[in-house]
């Protein structure tokens, strides 16, 4: 369930944009290659960063844990001759892998569909510019920025059996995060749920779409929000282990 959502979401979104660009191709003929790529990738990034990525993480964290809640298998997992730490870490690693997979697919599909557009509509100037490495860096940063949320949501889903609590908390926090980051609140970098949005904002040039000049693209991988995200991820991950140890299986 978590696995398929991690695969289908990037496919769907990229496909949608592909269709959008494809059907409006006449209007885009005059746009220079770099702007074309930026609009294409930027549209995907914009949706992802603000709402979709956090919600996807909420869902992945939930689905990884809910398998065990539903089958009531926590008790049998924790009564196997395997260190509790390994069970906990293995579960987390899987969620971690799913988020990574999803973001990698986004890079892949963005580039893939972009190139497909340039083949199908040679009039579009997609082949004038290449942004593979930039895009990979942006998504890497996005991934790092989302780890704080992942740890928090993972712990919530581990503790609560039902979907509503982690979902509700995650959703509310995401909205708050988007607002905080969107309003440029100066402490937004301290709030994990703002990090993906901050990442997107910092990498996308503000004047995108206005067509004024050729924008400079630069990815500064290690900004303070990324450090906060990584810090939160590690601390919550370790804290979660001790909570799991203490809470026992009831």
């Amino acid at each position, binding site marked *: 369930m978590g696995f398929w959502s991690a695969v289908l979401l990037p496919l769907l979104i990229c496909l949608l944009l592909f269709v959008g660009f494809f059907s409006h191709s006449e209007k885009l003929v005059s746009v220079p290659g770099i702007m074309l790529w930026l609009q294409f990738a930027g549209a995907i990034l914009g949706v992802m960063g603000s709402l979709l990525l956090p919600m996807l993480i909420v869902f992945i964290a939930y689905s990884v844990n809910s398998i065990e809640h*539903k*089958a009531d298998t926590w*008790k049998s997992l924790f009564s196997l*001759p395997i260190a509790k730490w390994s069970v906990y870490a293995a579960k987390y690693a899987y969620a971690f892998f799913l988020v990574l997979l999803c973001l990698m697919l986004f890079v892949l599909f963005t580039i893939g569909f972009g190139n497909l557009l340039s083949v199908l509509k040679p009039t579009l100037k997609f082949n004038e510019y290449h942004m593979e490495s930039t895009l990979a860096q942006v998504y890497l940063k996005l991934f790092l920025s989302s780890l704080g949320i992942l740890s928090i949501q993972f712990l919530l889903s581990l503790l609560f059996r039902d979907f509503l609590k982690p979902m509700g908390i995650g959703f509310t926090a995401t909205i708050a995060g988007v607002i905080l980051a969107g309003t440029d609140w100066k402490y937004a970098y301290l709030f994990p749920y703002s990090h993906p949005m901050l990442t997107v904002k910092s990498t996308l040039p503000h004047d995108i779409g206005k067509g004024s000049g050729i924008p400079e693209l630069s990815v500064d991988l290690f900004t303070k929000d990324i450090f906060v995200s990584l810090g939160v991820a590690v601390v919550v991950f370790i804290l979660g282990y001790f909570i799991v140890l203490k809470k026992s*299986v009831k």
Partner: protein
Amino acid sequence: MVISTEGLSFNFGNQQVVKSLSLQVPKGSIYGFLGPNGAGKTTTIKLLLNLLKTDQGSIHIFDKELQSNRVAILSEIGSLIEQPAIYLHLSGKENLMNRALLLRVSEQRVDEMLALVHLKDAAHKKAGKYSLGMKQRLGIALALLSDPQLLILDEPTNGLDPNGIIEVRELLIRLVTQHNKTVFISSHLLAEVERMATHVGIIDKGELLFQGSIKDLEAISQPQVQVELENTVDAANFLKKHGFNVIDISDNSLSIPYTSKTQMGEINTLLNKNGYMVYSIHKIHKDLEKLFLDITQNA
């Protein structure tokens, strides 16, 4: 001793669920752990598996302290707690294979286990589509998979048909007698474990009320005089007037605690002389089921 606990206590919030338990489970025994609903059986089992953290007291399994030898001890335990933990979207065999992977057990062993619990035909059916008894069988197969020294089973025959119950019973007896394993099995029915248990522990409201071999349990059972006649209610009132303590009345018989042969003769004469025809009168040992009820109700 395979399991030995001392002063084991556990609280859920401020409710004390397990009170200073001292369990002694000898090697090669089938230990029936009995108690009514809510007695604390499952909680005790979770403590034995280190799923719940002991508040007070100590647990030694295979003569090793549980907390500090957790992985080593658990590698020799197979367990089934309450409803078996099964992934419903996987088939029976996939469930076993999944566990076999974690325990590094061969596929051949998985097939053996499927055959043992008669799930070969349903091996590739989704476990979600299993009947209650089939799920329970799969749970037992999961517990046996690693060929553990000690089996801890929480009401394993829950939901099994009479045939299934007999099979499980015979399987457990075979494991103990032929393979020298030890079985710790909980139940709220004494009758269910009576035929296989070598040792019994009776728990109620978290307290251990009795522990010993099944013979010890039989020994403390109080003999009774059972009289078969008609009009049992009148006869009982009559006997009470004459100072006998009638403890049990049914439609066609009544029971009085046995004290001596003379007492039995007196009862017989008294009834016959006063127009109550006695069809039969004999001394019986209270069955274990009643004994169990007595022990748990008098506490």
